[in-house]
């Protein structure tokens, strides 16, 4: 079904010890939908995203990813991770492997792909993110922007249905942000379901179907970008927008 719910969260709550980081989260992401999560630091947006592929456990509510119910159980988490790809703020490329080897590691060991097929797939993806000529370089020999593009290709190598991005450009120098955002825009145009935590509001305006604003562990506002940026309903959203758009 075209509008099948890819991610469904109902009444989700999460605590770190006594401190509640997520309060009663209700969120649904349809197939092909692009969601941008934004909010002040400490609002819980990174935690929310990391919850979707099981990197963070949750204590209350229900999370369903592509029909699989995500309980705090190994088998469910493994199944979900097969459908979800993640890109991190600090890239997390494997430093002892080349770019090509970073991409072929999971297909070979998880999907049991023969090496040649895995390498062909890897080169194709590196081509797509315009970095094929660096295939045999090690991460330390690449710039930040190049590393993040390799990281995106690495996540795509597992053919995920959903791509999660946790502040993908926050650790990059300004001149490299564009090359990574360009790749993400292309990915969006191809119909990938994406959940992106970012401060890049330009990206949100052009690509997002919905902007979800979080503050202190709650979803405060959720609206299409035009509505959110031009006529935010809540005071907190207005305050946030004035702070980040002010400079």
């Amino acid at each position, binding site marked *: 079904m075209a509008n099948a719910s890819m991610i469904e969260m109902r009444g989700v709550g999460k605590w770190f010890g006594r401190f509640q980081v997520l309060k009663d989260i209700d969120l649904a992401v349809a197939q092909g939908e692009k969601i941008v999560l934004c909010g002040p630091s400490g609002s819980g947006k990174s935690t929310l995203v990391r919850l979707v592929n099981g990197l963070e456990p949750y204590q209350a509510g229900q999370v369903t990813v592509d029909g699989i119910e995500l309980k705090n159980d190994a088998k469910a988490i493994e199944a979900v*991770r*097969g459908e979800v790809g*993640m890109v*991190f703020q600090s890239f997390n490329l494997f430093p002892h492997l080349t770019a090509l080897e970073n991409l072929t590691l999971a297909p*070979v060991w998880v999907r049991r792909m023969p090496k040649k097929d895995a390498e062909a797939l890897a080169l194709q993806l590196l081509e797509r993110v315009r970095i094929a000529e660096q295939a045999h370089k090690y991460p330390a020999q690449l*710039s930040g922007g190049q590393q993040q593009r390799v990281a995106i290709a690495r996540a795509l190598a597992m053919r995920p249905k959903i791509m999660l991005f946790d502040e993908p450009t926050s650790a990059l120098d300004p001149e490299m942000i564009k090359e990574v955002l360009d790749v993400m825009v292309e990915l969006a145009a191809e119909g990938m379901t994406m959940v992106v935590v970012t401060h890049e509001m330009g990206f949100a305006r052009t690509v997002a179907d919905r902007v979800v604003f979080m503050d202190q562990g709650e979803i405060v506002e959720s609206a299409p970008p035009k509505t959110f940026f031009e006529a935010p309903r809540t005071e907190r959203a207005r305050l946030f927008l004035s702070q980040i758009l002010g400079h």
Partner: protein
Amino acid sequence: MRARAVAAQLALLAAVAFVVWYLASNTVQNLEARKIASGFGFLSREAGFEIGEAPFLAYSAADSYARAILIGLINTFRVALIGVVLATVIGTVVGLARLSRNWLLAKLAAGYVELLRNVPLLVQLFFIYAVITENLPGPRQALEPLPGVVLSNRGIAFPVLEPHAVHAWMGAALAAGAVLAWLAARWGSRRQARTGKPFPALTTGAALVLGLPLAVFLAAGAPLALARPVLQGFNFVGGAALTPEFAALTGGLTLYTAAFIAEIVRAGVLSVDRGQSEAAYSLGLSRRRTTRLVILPQALRVIVPPLTSQYLNLTKNSSLAVAIGYPDLVSIANTTMNQTGQAIEGIAIIMAVYLTISLSISALMNGYNKRIALKGARR
């Protein structure tokens, strides 16, 4: 500028050369005055002293000094090799225990490390030696914690298998098993590259290396004749025996070095960023695969250099044997020096041996480092 630099260096060389000449000429004079010969001729003379432990090479007081020193060298290697293996095992266990989520285990491991690292090794050796020789009962009232294993103030004795023809065959089976395991692993990884099917190299290898000798053993009728230590007169005879000196030295060295290795292992594991395992899990890799393919290679790069350093330290520290009475290289060279007066040659031998060991291990380490070093950062 250049001329000044060259002149300064020449002056330095001249000064060093002068000092060396001065010391050498004094030495020659003093040796003549004391009627001590120079050179290594004394090595072929009869040693005239007994050595308490000579397990691999027969030795008697009528043998030459050279042979005595060789025995000392073998004894040093005995302690060093066993110490290195045991210390690595114990150190890794303690290091990982320190990272455990179990509070008791982590604190216990931390206590062990703090205690052993802050007391001099020599004190620890004396302590263990005192426990064995003073606090263990005599052979007649020896402790027997396990059947056949006897602890007394004469040392530790335990049963060993009687020598049997099948042992040679088992050794051959072990070697064959190792070779087959290696070949199987290679074949397996080739197949994986071709078809994607993974091959359980580790389990197969273990099965071959352990299973083949076992099969040979069983085929020969499983000869289980044990030589047990039996009390005869004032000591135990039969089986294998560890003297108090050997036990104290090896035990002390092992426990001490293990404390340092524990810290190295802990630092190595902690050095790998948490993001690495998160990225691997996100890609769908299991815990075991993540540890083997992502964490371990990175941790080992951090662990191996200081680890080899500790191995070197253990070998050098084995020279403390002279204080306990274990006949290692330094001990026997010392006795030789005392008897013949050939102090310079004796010390030269000691230093030459240890330098060779140190430099070889350093060279191996540097070679290994260059090969596995993470390709450098951009300038």
